[in-house]
């Protein structure tokens, strides 16, 4: 490849137009690799025989022109430009035997491979989408059989449901600033169990606080939980007809008494 130092001046009008069209359309590219692939087509050779050096020059020229036109290029285009500039210098300078790492030729070969592979996948995608397709070119049975003799309910869920369900729980956890401390929670079931064992002895009006479980009165957090659970359990027992409950006025003590004639 005979590269003249003036190649940018010698490109034809059509090539210049094509390059400008590329710049205007930079949003249409899916990143630097996509752009490189498009640029490489101007070489009109088999991708296996592509000149990576020429391609690097094209790309760098492209970036320069974009800068001249004051177009904002995304960071990854600039990263690629820096890398290609590095590659270009490696390809042009004689190899330095003391330098470590891959040679310019190896890097160039890899870039060519990436371009060829991307092109191959695009061709494969096009061929795939061009195949005869279900619901367009060939068809499934239109009239599926329906009998209503046996009915069995089958529950289903998709993998997405499952994962979203899990994600829902886990994100809720992430948001929760503290982990629920089970030790300080007295459940209503526990309170009910406790009350059921005790109400037999509650002949007279007794303050509800005397039903709190032992060891739960001191710590305010635990007391709150135990009080709430005990109160809820009392209401439940009243509803079941085992207990009577009263409160003389707002904030007055709540008192409980066994109901004499449980149904």
């Amino acid at each position, binding site marked *: 490849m005979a590269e003249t130092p003036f190649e940018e001046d010698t490109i034809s009008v059509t090539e210049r137009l094509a390059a400008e069209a590329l710049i205007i359309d930079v949003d249409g590219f899916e990143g630097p690799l996509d752009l490189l692939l498009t640029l490489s087509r101007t070489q009109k050779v088999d991708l296996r025989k592509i000149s990576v050096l020429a391609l690097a020059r094209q790309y760098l020229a492209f970036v320069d022109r974009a800068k001249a036109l004051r177009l904002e290029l995304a960071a990854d285009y600039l990263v690629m430009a820096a890398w290609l500039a590095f590659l270009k210098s490696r390809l042009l300078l004689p190899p330095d035997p003391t330098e470590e790492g891959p040679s310019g030729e190896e890097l160039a070969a890899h870039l060519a491979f990436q371009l060829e592979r991307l092109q191959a996948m695009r061709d494969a995608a096009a061929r795939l989408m061009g195949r005869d397709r279900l619901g367009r070119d060939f068809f499934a049975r239109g*009239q599926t059989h329906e009998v209503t003799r046996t009915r*069995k*309910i*089958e529950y*289903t*869920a998709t993998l*997405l449901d499952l994962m979203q369900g899990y994600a829902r729980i886990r*994100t809720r956890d992430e948001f929760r600033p503290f982990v629920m401390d089970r030790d300080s929670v007295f459940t209503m079931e526990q309170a009910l169990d406790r009350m059921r064992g005790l109400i037999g002895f509650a002949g007279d009006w007794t303050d509800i606080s005397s039903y709190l479980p032992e060891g739960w009165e001191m710590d305010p957090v635990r007391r709150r939980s135990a009080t709430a659970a005990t109160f809820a359990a009392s209401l439940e027992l009243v509803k079941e007809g085992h207990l009577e409950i009263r409160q003389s006025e707002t904030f007055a003590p709540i008192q409980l008494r066994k109901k004499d004639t449980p149904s």
Partner: protein
Amino acid sequence: MSDDQAPEPEESLFEAPPMGEQERMVEAILFATAEPISLRDLAARMPHGSDPAEALVHLRKRYEGRGVNLCKIGDAWAMRTATDLGFLMQRETVETRKLSRAAIETLAIIAYHQPVTRAEIEEIRGVSVSRGTVDQLLEMEWIRFGRRKMTPGRPVTFVVTQGFLDHFGLENARDLPGLKELRAAGLLENRPPPGAGLPGPDEEPEEESTEGQSELFED
């Protein structure tokens, strides 16, 4: 496909396709349509000059005694399962319903954390797990009892079954994506607020579950 059609109408003005072809066409149309189809509709869909009535005669003969028969319903035609094979169709009447949210969440926790006890499930969900939910999952054979845990009370654990893996197209419960991957796939809409931070290394869910599971998958 579409470009192949172009030349055909020209020819068909002169000549209808051979009867064998017409029979294939009628067969395909009857197979793919949801409703029985009349002779007139058949003729309208086939190339000009076709004779669906004759094609139907041939087709009917061809399907005689087969598992599926060509039937005339009013003045329309349809393919129907042979009446003596109706017993094979009973499975078609399965009614599918979406699993409840509680069941899905319980199932997800079992899948990600197995072997897991009921108390652990409740701890993770933050609400108690109803008996019905676990029973339903057991009945569906998506979960089963695992080994008892060597903790006080020796509680039973739950694990997912092969049937679960089959249903969800997994080779292995370990292949379930982790939290980070769920997020990358866009399945976690909510990002944690800055400062809430990512789960610490000691509570990385996927790490944890693999550990629990490797034991399960060794035997």
